């Protein structure tokens, strides 16, 4: 469904990401893990067109989207839920959600999808008329995911959805991600919470200083000593 080949991204003279290749198949939940500054967010942004790859190729469902503008990429079915939630704090929850569907023309279908998103996140329904900025961190994350779903994506890019959330809320967000996968959505998840990410994912890629260092099925990588050493706390197997 999505295929990156040899992607390189530069910030000015600095090569932030080099020779990154990854594939995401229909219905898969793929996680991209790695430490801070490894280039995970940068890679995700290049897929949604927020950053331009300086080399390599990004294909989505057989179409080259390497140089496509973001609004076209969104319209094609890729939705990016950015790191740090980035909801529009001064707009209401309802306005935030409706803006998620800005690339779509069919109002009736949008209204139906709004109902579905509110079914996934019932807490948002009570807060529809409230300014987005007044929501708690967890609610804001739900709103950010809900907003991303409003464009009716076939591929959802999730960047650090558990960042800065209370443990209970992290559980709920991951439960939601698992549910979205069950409903058939293809997801590319960038996470620092490696433990949880490997729990829900089918396959995983590990990035280190701008390159792919490992890849494989999530349950295999969980037991890989290099991953345990680096990300799961010194080889201890946590429950």
């Amino acid at each position, binding site marked *: 469904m999505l295929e990156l080949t040899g992607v390189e991204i530069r910030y000015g003279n600095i090569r932030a990401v080099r020779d990154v290749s990854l594939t995401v198949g229909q219905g898969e939940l793929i996680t991209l893990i790695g430490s801070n500054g490894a280039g995970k967010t940068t890679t995700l942004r290049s897929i949604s067109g927020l950053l331009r790859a300086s080399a390599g190729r990004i294909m989505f469902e057989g179409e080259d989207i390497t140089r496509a503008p*973001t609004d076209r990429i969104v319209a094609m079915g890729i939705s990016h*839920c*950015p790191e740090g939630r*980035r909801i529009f704090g001064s707009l209401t929850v309802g306005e935030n959600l409706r*803006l*998620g569907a800005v690339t779509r023309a069919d109002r009736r279908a949008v209204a139906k999808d709004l109902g579905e998103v509110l079914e996934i996140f019932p807490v948002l329904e009570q807060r529809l008329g409230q300014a987005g900025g007044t929501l708690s961190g967890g609610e804001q994350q739900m709103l950010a995911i809900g907003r991303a779903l409003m*464009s009716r994506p076939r591929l959802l890019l999730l960047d650090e959805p558990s960042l800065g959330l209370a443990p209970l809320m992290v559980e709920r967000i991951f439960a939601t991600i698992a549910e979205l996968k069950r409903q058939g959505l293809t997801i590319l998840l960038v996470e620092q919470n490696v433990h949880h990410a490997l729990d829900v994912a089918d396959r995983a890629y590990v990035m280190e200083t701008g390159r792919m260092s490992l890849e494989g099925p999530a349950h295999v990588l969980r037991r890989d000593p290099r991953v345990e050493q680096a990300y799961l706390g010194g080889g201890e197997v946590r429950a």
Partner: protein
Amino acid sequence: MAARRAAGPAMAVGLSALAFALLDASGQAFWQGLVINLLIFIILTVSLNLTSGFTGVFSLGQIGFMALGAYASAILTLPLREKAAFLPDLPSWLAGVHLDWSVGPLPVGFLVATLIAGGLVSVIAWPVGRVLMRLSGHFVAVATLGFLVIVRVILFNADGFTRGSRTFSNVTQYTNLWWAGLWALVVVYVVWRIKRSTYGREMLAQREDRVAAQAIGIRVMEPRLLAFVVGAFFAGVAGSLYAHFITSFSPTVFYFDLTFRVITMLVVGGMGSVSGSIVGAVAIVALGEALRRVEDATLLYGLSSIVLAAMFLVVITVRRGGLLGEREIPLDRLFLRRDRTADQSP
């Protein structure tokens, strides 16, 4: 429900109309002039709010659009004899134009000239916006300031059209309370509707977080350009009203002083709030008038400019969002709220 929602704004419009009628009948030329001036400032501030307040693209060029609108419409309505005397170098296709038709007491020619002026300004704003709206933050401010300077230089040098630095005079005084009031109503209504539309939400969203807006597929350029072009149209209208109100003017009028005044109104009222712009314009015009009297009494000339500038500084340091932030005065809920409290009573 819809009727009730309309009741509040309708009442505000009705009361304003009544006040205008009384003022019109009173024959108090000074107060009439002050109110017309205020209405023009409201149009300018609301249009700048659309261009800058909604989008976060800080434009210092709005008064340049106003100047173009003023000259364009004044040339169109200038009587032929005056045209021949003052603007002998006007190209022939313009020299014979005199929009003075009227239907009954209604000067339709003036309306047409104003619409042409607004349209012309929009046509100029489009390519300017295409280039400048790519920029952000300080760069836009400097670039639009450049636009203001360019307009001024052109007005000074295109003396075949503008008489250059000499005063452009003998413009018919068409602008009255009703014209200014009606245009102010149109501008406020249109901008308020834009704020409530998808385009408006896109403007506010990309202002708040450009990356997040792009990530969900908002084309940043489109809402910005729309705001810039529509804002320019209304600035052109304000220019036309102004020209037909003071009847004589020169390029020096349309410069930093006026720019700063309108920006102060916008910032004091609140960037992003339409009703805030009205409040800001009223506050600054009233304050300016009061201070002018203090100046006359104490001979401390320049006081009003200092106070205005100080006020601007206080607002941007202490209360960034201005008086209203981007909220609106909930006129539409005026009659809904009363009902709700009635329901709760036993």
